């Protein structure tokens, strides 16, 4: 174990041991970074699936974690590592989505948007699980729900990222939550 690792030791408090892993990884310890990866990959994967609307997330996950490794030096510990990682992931995902959308739009000479249409309001449907229910949300309210409730962005940040107003963000969030609450009846 590296000198840094032995100094930091192993803590039973998960947050503290995560902070230790972050310090080790920032110093170049690949094994510590792998621990961070394992701890967060599932959540980041769901984030990616929801935001890209596809289960094919392998290559974007690689992008996210490689970028996280590269940017680790900039993490100052002002928030939880998970929060920092999620925000980094959101940036990668939004950029990827924009690239895909822009490219797709330009294939067609006449104006036709390929953005997903809002799902019709067909009334309450109970999906097999709440994850699927999130997937089935219309894209705009799904985005807002995921960014606000899963990642922890504030409405003005969401508004900036998605190009909407904070008011729209609030109403979309409410709409999403009201749809999802059926799973808790």
């Amino acid at each position, binding site marked *: 174990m590296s000198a840094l690792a032995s100094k930091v030791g192993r803590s039973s408090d998960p947050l503290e041991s995560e902070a230790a892993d972050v310090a080790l990884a920032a110093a170049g310890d*690949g094994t510590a*970074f*792998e621990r961070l*990866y*394992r701890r967060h*990959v*599932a*959540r*980041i*994967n*769901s*984030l990616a*699936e929801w935001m890209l609307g596809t*289960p094919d*997330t*392998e*290559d974007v*996950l*690689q*992008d996210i*974690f*490689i970028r996280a*490794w*590269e940017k680790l030096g900039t993490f100052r510990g002002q928030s939880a590592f998970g929060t920092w990682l999620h925000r980094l992931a959101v940036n990668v995902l939004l950029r990827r989505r924009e690239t895909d959308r822009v490219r797709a739009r330009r294939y067609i000479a006449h104006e036709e948007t390929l953005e997903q249409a809002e799902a019709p309001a067909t009334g309450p449907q109970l999906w097999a699980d*709440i*994850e699927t229910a999130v997937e089935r949300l219309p894209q705009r309210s799904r985005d807002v*729900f995921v960014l606000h*409730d*899963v990642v922890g962005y504030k409405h003005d940040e969401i508004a900036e990222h998605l190009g909407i107003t904070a008011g729209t963000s*609030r*109403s979309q*969030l*409410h709409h999403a*939550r*009201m749809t*999802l*609450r059926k*799973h*808790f*009846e």
Partner: protein
Amino acid sequence: MTDHWTERLSAYVDGELDREERGALEVHLTSCEACATAVAQLRQVVGWAHGYEGKPPKVDVWDAVARGIREREGSREESRHPPKRSGERVRRFVFTVPQLLAAGIALALFSGTAVGVALRAVGAGSGRTVVTDPALLPDEIPLGESFDIDGNDPWTVAVVTQLEEQYAEAIADLESLLREGQDKLDSATLRVIEENLRTIDEAVEQATVALRRDPAAVYLSELISVNLRRKLELLRDAAALVASET
């Protein structure tokens, strides 16, 4: 639910109501079961989201991540390599022959002034190659015959590694020739050659970085291969020029 409080329930759960509005809503909740239920459910939704552990990817990508990181570290290491003399740029061969071959890319490799070796994958991904330099063939395979390229076959690996080294060597030889003879060249010519070598190097670098991030974009290796070949041609032109001025 049609009362005007519905829209404020999420804001209430998020603690965004001012004291006055919050008080009014709480009064309302004592008498409206629908709203009270909704608040409880909304809290559950939020709680679920906060604590959501996520669904792991179908395929674990750690190996790919580790590889990507190693490659990045490796190329960063190379670019930090100090120049041997002032003004000298170290140009490194950043893409390996086996990777290009694996993508079914035709490669013509030359060793300095020798005629050269052509390594060709017959049909993308088929992995069969034709080696035309007799020095590289074992005795039992006649010139012109094809053989299966197998990444695990030690002989194939040896051949490919040797070619890779020759390629890097060829570029290094030519660069060194150019360096030594550069004062013999017209300064305009030298500038054009250097500018264009830089253009090629930048293109190779960009495509290499993109390919690492996205190994599925195989066509990028064609871009890289084609540009490396151009670089070699340009270096040979420059070296021939230097030689002719001597």
